């Protein structure tokens, strides 16, 4: 089947996962964490990371069992010609829903942040054009572009955090245990669905050089994101205080607004937002591409590109359906996150099935 070896190596994989996950920091995601963890939100982030890493392991085990294959092929091999595509479709649907909600959430953020008088549909169309182009080009160019843009994306996060430090007040991190260990741990576990987004790696497993780099990309990417998320929420809490930070819709943007380093370096948030757009475009493109590829494989179509444009139009229309931003946040937090957590079960099921039905692996090479 495979015409040539994949080209995505470890560095690109790590950066791809990191960019996919880190883009969430620019919307209301840090507030979710602070909401459940209060002053101990950084512990939530760390628990989430640990749990996310564990949840990623079945995926990489699956990728190692079927080297050079994507999720669509694997599920068809393991679960048969009917159940397999159904499982793929489930994952594709979730990825697609994430794109739709992400599209709307980011549109709202950018309207609020830099273009208050522009109609949302214009912003959505523009970012969708980026997504269409990237998806059209495929995952390898996208991951290379992400690698090129990585310094800028990282600067967009870390410069904001760094420049905010002068206003930080470490005493706001107390009480140390926040609302107590039990909400912290349960909150951390609830948000460990970040592994579901890392499933993009498994979907495009055929594009990786080897399963080992896929495995390590996922782990390092999730770990780096977890540390960044922990740093972000701690600084947010240190600056705004937990109750205030938990209620902000755009915590990171508010942080960027406060940056004041002398008379010359102030009000740079518009510039920072420009850097964030790169991360957002990468996130949406990668999830969208993965969704489309999975859909293609589930429907046993020979080539994914004809699906790109119709799916983009669909995403655009669906993203305009929620009546306001609060609905978007609610859908994201109350539906997509738990469903993402549930989605992580699919690789586990596939792995168990593969073991039972003796499919894949070195001794039973498919």
């Amino acid at each position, binding site marked *: 089947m495979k015409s040539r070896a994949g*080209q*995505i*190596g470890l*560095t*690109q994989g790590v950066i791809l996962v990191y960019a996919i996950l880190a883009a969430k920091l620019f919307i209301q995601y840090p507030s979710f964490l602070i909401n459940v963890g209060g002053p101990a939100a950084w512990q939530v982030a760390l628990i989430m990371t640990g749990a996310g890493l564990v949840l990623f392991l079945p995926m990489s085990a699956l990728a190692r069992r079927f080297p050079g294959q994507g999720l669509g092929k694997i599920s068809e091999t393991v679960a048969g010609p009917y159940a397999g595509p159904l499982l793929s479709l489930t994952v594709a649907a979730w990825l697609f829903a994430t794109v739709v909600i992400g599209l709307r959430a980011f549109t709202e953020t*950018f309207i609020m942040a*830099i*273009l208050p008088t*522009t109609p949302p549909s*214009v*912003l959505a169309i*523009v*970012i969708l*054009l*980026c997504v269409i*182009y*990237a998806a059209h*080009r*495929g995952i*390898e*160019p*996208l991951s*290379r*572009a992400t*690698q*090129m*843009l990585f310094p800028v994306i990282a600067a967009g996060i870390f410069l904001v955090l760094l420049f905010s430090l002068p206003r930080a007040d470490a005493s706001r991190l107390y009480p140390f245990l926040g609302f107590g260990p039990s909400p912290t741990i349960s909150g951390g576990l609830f948000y460990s669905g970040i592994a579901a987004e890392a499933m993009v790696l498994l979907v495009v497993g055929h594009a990786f050089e080897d399963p080992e780099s896929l495995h390590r990309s996922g782990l390092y990417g999730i770990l780096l994101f977890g540390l960044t998320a922990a740093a972000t929420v701690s600084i947010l809490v240190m600056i705004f205080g937990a109750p205030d930070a938990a209620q902000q819709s755009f915590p990171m943007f508010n942080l960027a607004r406060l940056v004041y380093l002398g*008379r*010359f370096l*102030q*009000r*740079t948030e*518009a*510039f920072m*937002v*420009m*850097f964030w*757009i*790169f991360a957002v*475009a*990468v996130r949406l493109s990668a999830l969208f591409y993965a969704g489309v590829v999975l859909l293609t494989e589930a429907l046993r179509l020979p080539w994914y590109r004809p699906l790109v444009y119709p799916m983009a139009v669909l995403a655009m229309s669906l993203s305009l359906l929620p009546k306001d931003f609060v609905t978007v946040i609610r859908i994201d937090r109350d539906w997509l996150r738990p469903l993402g957590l549930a989605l992580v079960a699919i690789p586990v099921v596939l792995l168990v099935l593969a073991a039972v039905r003796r499919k894949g692996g070195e001794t039973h090479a498919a």
Partner: protein
Amino acid sequence: MSLWQSLMQLLDPASGREDEPFSLGDDDGAPAAEQEGASRLMADAQLRAEGIMTHIDNLLEAQGTGKKGLEQAGDLSVSLKENTERMKATFRMPENMDLIVREITVATQPPTPAAVFFMEGLADKTNLNRDILGPLMLLSHLDHHQDGEGDAGPTTFTISTVVKRLLPGHQVTEKHDLEAITDSLLSGDSVLFFEGSSTALAVETKGFPMRSVGEPKTEKVIQGPHDAFVEAFRVNVSLVRRRLKDPRVITKVLTVGQISKTYVAVLWIDGIATPKLVAEVKRRIEAVNVDIVGGAGILEQYIEDNPSSLLPGMLTTERPDRVAAYLSEGHVAVFVDNSPQALICPITFWSLLQTAEDYYLRFPFGSILRFVRMAALLVALLVPALYIAVVNYHPEMIPTELMLFVASTRENVPLPAVVELVLMDLAFELIREAGTRIPSVIGSTIGLVASLILGQAAVEAKIVSPLLILIVALTGLASFAIPNYMTSFGVRSLRFMLVGAATVLGFYGVAAALFIMTVHLAAMQSFGVPFLSPVAPSRGGLSDVLGRGPLFRMEMRPGYTHPLDRRRQGEIIRTWDPKAGPAAEKGGNS
């Protein structure tokens, strides 16, 4: 014509009708033109048919003489007259006056009639007189020892005697068919036909006017060699060979173009360049099926991966030292005859920002130069777009005092910022284009005057603000700091797109456009090599990409060309150095 005559003509009803003006597409001439075309086709076909008949005859005769004999059986006749007639017909003589026929008698025993053919202007006449006509006509009657035999006597005529004893030309080849003869005549050789022989001899007498090796026009350096390629590809190849004295350097000459029959030389180093790359380059060149190939820039468009991209897919250089350096790293160079540039493939985005000078300077300065160019790229690409975005959408980003100043200078200007910018950019492009085309003696003066006066006058007329002049001048300067001519073009075009995006959507538009550009760059390939490698995908060996590391630490050739031999030089070059050499390692340095 006298006044009276003109007056009469005006009054004469018969002369009132003007003659039909000349037109190429005139219907009247059509049947005649068709007839003419048909008769030419007929003549060509007849010529070919004669050739085929003779070829068959020769093949029949050569039966039983083995493979070599069959191969040598071409379409030439044994009759000198017949061959001469066919040559004349092929070259459309007597209408065509470039082919010269000199009929002679070779003073062998018995005297053999012969004919020398050469193209006027392509063959060197001194050579012809001294090395062909002289020996054959004057000296061939001298006693020569026969081949393989010891006895003396008058020379008898055979082709091999002529080749071995009578023709002192340095390159003599036997030709057996008309097409090969035509080709060598047109490349400047002289061709000899002999009565009674179906073999012709081509003697190398090339001598056409040629520019001598001069200085590079667009890739000047301060330190380093100052020679540049010229229009003759043989000279160019020799300039490179002088720098690579290795027998493994291979020059493969291909011919492209049905009419132009342009020589295209492909150079690579056997054992370093991967054979897959060499085969691909040759495959693409051989696939070019056009009538003429005018130069490197034209061939490039036929064989590069992304002909519609704004950035070049092959590196054009006029410096032999660069070609030699690239060859040594496993690249392939392509020379096109009549073109003072070489094409190098595959290339990466980063090589478009490098110059030969980077290597002739000590490494900190080489790196600094590259960083300056990188900054120039960013300035040339982004500054106008960012200016528009800030002025139109985010004036709060500028410190208050500066913003007040900007506002006060812009107050007098009635035009929107983007119109100002585009106007000034257009004026800049005008100055650039005019400066390139006008004679160089007045070129620099005009450029200076135009830019100074235009800018000053535009500000005083309150059409543009002074800050904008600063921005346009800065971006213009930056775009000329990009060393590659084509890249500089591409960056200037992309700049207009970014300005458009910034006008419509501010930073959001700029970011979206940049994202699409980056994905486009990442998707581009040059002969199978990702355009952004070795940065993305990272293949190691970054010391010679963004900066320029010390030469003595560049032990490996870049991996993206997949060279057969990765190692360029030994681990430690400065062996004499107590700080870096083996001495240091022995001294307890692990």
